[in-house]
């Protein structure tokens, strides 16, 4: 169990004054994840909201060494830094522990950065990769990505008389990373901060490539009030749209509320509870497109069944 009182005594690694939107989930996730280690941390950041809004020249919100190179290569950038560190360590020029983190959005991870991520994972670099999954290209104006859920309206999958929002289901990147057989892969939500910080702590303590996929509600892109960010990030878990689980040395384990749902100790909410809070799904509640909701529900039920089986339920 994480003690917030203990955490509150540590120095913040992300300063105030960044220009992420009011109610953005990303700085919450950064603060929670970076609070999980006391070692020095070096971060790379793919192009995206987090990168742009935390480093508007001549300002930076980062109190740790931080590097931005391009959209597609957060993973190879941090891999290079880590390789450099290993050489300096071997030569005796550095003798302290340093942790390496790559931050990227879903665009920079699911789509544009997947080759760099896959390569760095395969080469076995010692780094933690965190994907802030806000399920579209929010920084450039809410274009659909391969993480955008089916039925979500974006500016490149606009719901209207022709299509019901995005027509395809998102790809399951957490599973793709688990298939790399790296030491640690996890899915988290900032609403369940205990779970997320514990997972980050575990990830920081393990050598080798680690991957965390974190759902990051976006008030602008998901069309919800700014104060609902945390509530929605919880609903995503409670409906099994975004189950909390980890894969440690190829062993699957459900965590937190998801574990309780699998064990029948907590109710699995219908997906409507999640969809109805967000404007990007509002067309699904009209006569024309109401048939989409059962399709989404049945996909979630089937994915949840598969995941439960992997976790031994």
């Amino acid at each position, binding site marked *: 169990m994480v003690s917030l009182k203990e955490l*509150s005594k540590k120095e913040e690694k992300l*300063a105030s004054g960044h220009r992420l*939107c*009011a109610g953005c989930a990303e700085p919450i996730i950064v603060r929670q994840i970076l609070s999980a280690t006391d070692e020095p941390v070096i971060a790379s950041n793919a192009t995206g909201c987090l990168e742009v809004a935390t480093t508007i020249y001549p*300002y*930076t919100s980062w109190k740790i060494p931080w590097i931005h190179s391009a959209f597609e290569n957060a993973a190879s950038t941090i891999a290079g830094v880590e390789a450099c560190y290993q050489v300096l360590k071997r030569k005796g020029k550095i003798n302290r522990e340093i942790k390496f983190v790559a931050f990227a959005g879903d665009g920079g991870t699911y789509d544009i950065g997947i080759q760099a991520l896959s390569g760095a994972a395969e080469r076995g670099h010692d780094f933690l990769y965190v994907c802030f999954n806000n399920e579209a290209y929010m920084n450039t104006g809410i274009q659909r990505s391969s993480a955008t859920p089916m039925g979500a309206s974006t500016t490149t999958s606009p719901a209207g008389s022709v299509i019901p929002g995005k027509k395809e289901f998102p790809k399951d990147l957490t599973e793709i990373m688990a298939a790399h057989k790296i030491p640690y892969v996890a899915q988290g939500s900032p609403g369940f901060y205990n779970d997320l910080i514990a997972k980050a702590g575990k990830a920081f303590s393990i050598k080798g490539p680690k991957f965390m996929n974190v759902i990051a509600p976006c008030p602008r892109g998901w069309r919800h009030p700014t104060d609902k960010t945390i509530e929605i990030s919880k609903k995503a878990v409670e409906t099994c749209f975004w189950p909390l689980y980890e894969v440690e040395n190829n062993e699957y384990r459900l965590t937190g509320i998801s574990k309780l749902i699998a064990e029948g100790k907590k109710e699995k909410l219908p997906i409507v509870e999640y969809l109805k809070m967000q404007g990007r799904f509002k067309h699904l509640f009209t006569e024309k497109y109401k048939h989409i909701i059962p399709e989404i529900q049945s996909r979630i039920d089937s994915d949840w069944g598969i995941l439960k089986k992997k976790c031994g339920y």
Partner: protein
Amino acid sequence: MKGWKEIPDGGLILEPGNSVEYKTGSWRAKRPVWDKEKCINCLICWIQCPDNAIIVENEKIRGINYDYCKGCGICASICPKEAISMEEEK
């Protein structure tokens, strides 16, 4: 603002966390008001604040930093004791 001859090469920013010089509090349309009497210092608002705007000292909440609070209202919506309320900014 420094001229191009004085700034570091390569777009480097050499002052960590200097964004604190930029006050985002002016974005706020609604202001969170903290009720010390109702607060149980669970610190959930602190861990869920996107802007580090909940001031915590010695494990206790001391107030809200209006220099940076953007008024998103997350703190008010998740407080288990309803110790934070949102009021229109005048």
